[in-house]
């Protein structure tokens, strides 16, 4: 068995350990109210089991990372799959550090599902080892990517704590305008997370069924001499085409639930690489996510925020506020170092300029400015607690857009492959 094969096995082990750890954290917190037990002792005991499991998971994940590194001869952070798994691992490292400071089992209940989703999301992308193009062969790249991801992982923990804060303090029975608005946005955040889960489900379901469709797309380009040239490209779909690429003809479409033809065509202005396919994927994610959300609503018969809220009872919201703030404060210098300073050093080595306003660079700067605004807001009265929890949630959305959205929507120097 080669090292790379071993590392794939370690990855699967890590994934399942994370899933179990998540369940144990839920038992540790939600099980406190079960009869015939001392709540504090129960939380301590199950908290320890859960933390042990998640640490084992992290160990397996580290084993995956280093054996893949040894097996492929290059640090596994060079494509979307490798980067996202690394981000998941960083979140676990950040979570472990924060856990050592605050020893709150509750945090695991939110950090673990986040890791599980990100790791599952990573698995959607092609997993083979790809050789690096010359521009990417440099030690500063490794340092830049890993440090930036670690900083972002602390922001992710800050986000988890912020979301917990919201679920804890938002009044889910309130009828006032403000309460309703908070309820709506908390529910919307949860829905968004479920859409991402829906995306993963949809991709794996159709991949498991071996679904395929193919289109030929015509693209016309006008070069510098004003001569129009037309190129044709084949676009492979792994999800049934609800949206077909702009200006394209179907080559083969497997019928799905009687759907033989694409329903829409992608608009002309979406002319990024494979934008039609990406739009189709987004449509499918929303459909799958909405179905999943609807199913959960049917089971619980109330908003998901109101379902989770009671579990959070008895938790001091100030602790959550503190943990959220602290994670972000710990992550900020790491992020600055990794995503800006090391990035500038590397850009200067690779392209001879430390800053080039590449979309990815701009979005890293936006993230940094956002979190510096957050840290300054914390100095002002009235911005702790609820408002800062919202900022932690929005901040992580910006982080995710910088990491994934920029690559998938805006092309630039950092383009990776997409689904």
């Amino acid at each position, binding site marked *: 068995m080669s090292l790379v094969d071993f590392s794939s096995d370690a990855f699967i082990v890590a994934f399942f350990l994370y899933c179990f750890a998540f369940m144990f954290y839920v038992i540790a917190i939600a099980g406190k109210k079960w009869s015939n037990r001392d709540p504090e002792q129960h939380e301590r005991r199950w908290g320890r089991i859960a933390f042990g499991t998640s640490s084992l998971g992290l160990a397996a994940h580290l084993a995956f990372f280093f054996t893949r590194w040894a097996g492929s001869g290059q640090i596994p952070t060079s494509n979307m799959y490798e980067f996202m798994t690394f981000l998941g691992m960083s979140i676990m490292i950040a979570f472990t550090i924060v856990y050592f*400071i*605050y020893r709150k089992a509750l945090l695991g209940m939110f950090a673990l599902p986040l890791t599980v989703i990100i790791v599952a999301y990573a698995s959607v992308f*092609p997993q*083979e*080892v*790809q*050789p690096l*193009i*010359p*521009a990417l*062969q*440099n030690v500063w790249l490794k340092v830049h990517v890993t440090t930036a991801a670690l900083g972002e992982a602390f922001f992710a923990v800050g986000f988890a704590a912020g979301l917990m804060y919201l679920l804890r303090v938002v009044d889910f029975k309130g009828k006032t305008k403000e309460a309703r608005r908070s309820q709506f946005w908390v529910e919307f955040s949860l829905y968004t997370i479920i859409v991402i889960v829906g995306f993963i489900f949809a991709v794996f379901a159709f991949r498991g069924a071996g679904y395929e469709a193919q289109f030929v797309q015509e693209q016309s380009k*006008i070069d*510098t*001499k004003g001569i129009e040239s037309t190129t044709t490209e084949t676009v492979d779909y792994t999800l049934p085409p609800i949206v077909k690429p702009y200006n394209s003809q179907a080559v083969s479409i497997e019928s799905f639930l009687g759907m033989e033809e694409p329903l829409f065509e992608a608009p*002309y*202005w979406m*002319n990024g690489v494979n934008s039609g396919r990406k739009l189709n994927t987004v449509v499918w994610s929303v459909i799958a996510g909405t179905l999943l959300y609807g199913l959960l609503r049917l089971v619980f018969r109330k908003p998901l925020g109101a379902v989770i809220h009671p579990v959070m009872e008895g938790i*001091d919201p*100030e*602790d959550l*506020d*503190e943990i959220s*703030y*602290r994670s972000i*404060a*710990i992550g*900020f*210098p790491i992020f*600055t*170092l990794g995503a*800006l*300073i090391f990035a*500038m050093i590397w850009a*200067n*080595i*690779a*392209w*001879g*300029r*430390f800053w080039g*306003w590449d979309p990815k660079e*701009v*979005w890293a*700067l*936006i993230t940094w*400015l*956002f979190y*510096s*605004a957050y840290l*300054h*807001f*914390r*100095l*002002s*009265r009235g911005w*702790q*607690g609820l408002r800062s929890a919202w900022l932690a949630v929005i901040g992580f959305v910006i982080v995710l857009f910088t990491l994934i959205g*920029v690559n998938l929507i*805006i092309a630039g120097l950092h383009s990776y492959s997409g689904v």
Partner: protein
Amino acid sequence: MSLVENTKCECGHQNAVGTVLCESCGKPLDKNDQSDMPLEMRYDGVARRSQKTNPNVIDRVWNFFSSVKIAIYLIVLTFLTAMLGTIYPQENTFVNNFDPSVYYEETYGLPGKIYYLLGLTHTYESWWFIGLLVMIGTSLVICSLDRVLPLYRALNKQQIRKHHQFILRQKTVFKRRIEGEETKWADGFAAQLKRQGYRIHRDGTALLAEKNRFSRWGPYINHIGLILFLLAVLARSIPSWQLDTYITVPDGDTVQIADTNYYVKNEKFTVEYYKDEELPDKLKGTARAKLFETKAVLYECVSSCGDPLKEPELKEVKRHDIVVNEPLKYKGLKLYQFDFDTTPRLNEVRPVLVDKQTGDTYGPFDLPMKDSAPQHKLGPFTLDLYANYMEFSIDENGEPVTLSRDPVAPAFIFTVKGPGLDPAGEPYLYFPMQKDKVKFSQDAINAAIADKIEIRVDGMENVDFSEASTYLNVRMDRALPYVWIGAAFSMLGLLMGSYWQHRRIWLRIDQGELALGAHTNKNWYGMRSDVAKALGKTGIAVDPKSLDNGGNNA
């Protein structure tokens, strides 16, 4: 509020206008503030310059930029505008000459046109974006100065015995009757705090314990670094501080770097591709470049530079094999491998002239694609160069034109004089490349003269061509050292301010009544556990959480 505010504290200390807590004993000065809520401890309640009465114009500007609220607005505005700049590619991402006024509308339609008209196609060079950065810089300077000086004063002369109200209105508070000797208890407690790394100041039964004061300077060091960084970035717009251009150098050519005295020669360009067995299945058969290298020589012009009539005199100054990440560096000038083109390009041919009537050949003669001699004498024949095309084509009027200045499809029109030809000369069209000869049917155009003479190349040894061209990126940036110094300062400040916290504990015992208050600028959790631990070791077990006096986490 009366016009002249009484700012003298009951302890006798005269405070500046705007002071919240007496600089000496810490008693809240606002008479209306009678609550038990935790105190506002920012900058220890000292007055800042921006809190002057009767502000003049300079004061008003100062006050505007000294506000953290304004700073936050500026930050938010900057990142919102930065977002807009990423919607469509910026103008500077296009290496080739292109016309933005047409490009954006053609590519993105109406939204693209609006984007261009709003100036968002060069967001980061626009006056308003740079203006925002300058305002952030100003805000950094003023906010910092406005706060760091009063803070320094406040921390430099701290009174140990604080007012009861000051101690008991901290965010972390403990109150208890203690048994036994007061000084002895204080000694024991001080010893515990010392073990935790606190510096202890005593005044009888009053105590001030302090640690990591240096972390308070972190934000200011960070801000100094950011200012340096911003200044360095702005300095790059000074002419000759920065250069960023692209040059194409075919194999064997020497090309001048625009706006400089330097010339660069590409002695040999090589490219190596990944072999199929090195690639995963999906990428097999694709040409994925593994390594590309330019053997480059840098020359400096020493005399007759810029004189169009004379050849410049060049002196070799540096020789380097340029690969990605390994540029040629010379006195701040850097040449980076940017891209390459493996289309072969014709540099020179050495054709002969054949007199078809006698069968004699004359020549060969040198015919470079660029800057050929205007006349060639070959035995009895004379060739006068009438026209020279780099990329030959026929336009819609049937006239010959050139599409570019690169020798992609070179063509020559000679006026030929000699035996058997019109004494005034006959035109002869010559394509050095066989493909063009066929494509444009050279013989048909030349008609009658094609039967009398022929210009042709005998053998590949008479053809000189470049196999590839290398694209180099030329850069110069004199502000760079300052950029790194700024970044280093900023990072140092961030680490100081984020990973250490300034913690202070005040304590006084009056008639067996212990009053303890503690303050930190960050991480109240750690502050409480420090106090709880020291109390625990002196025999008072408390839950850290119970020390919390409410209020917000700063």
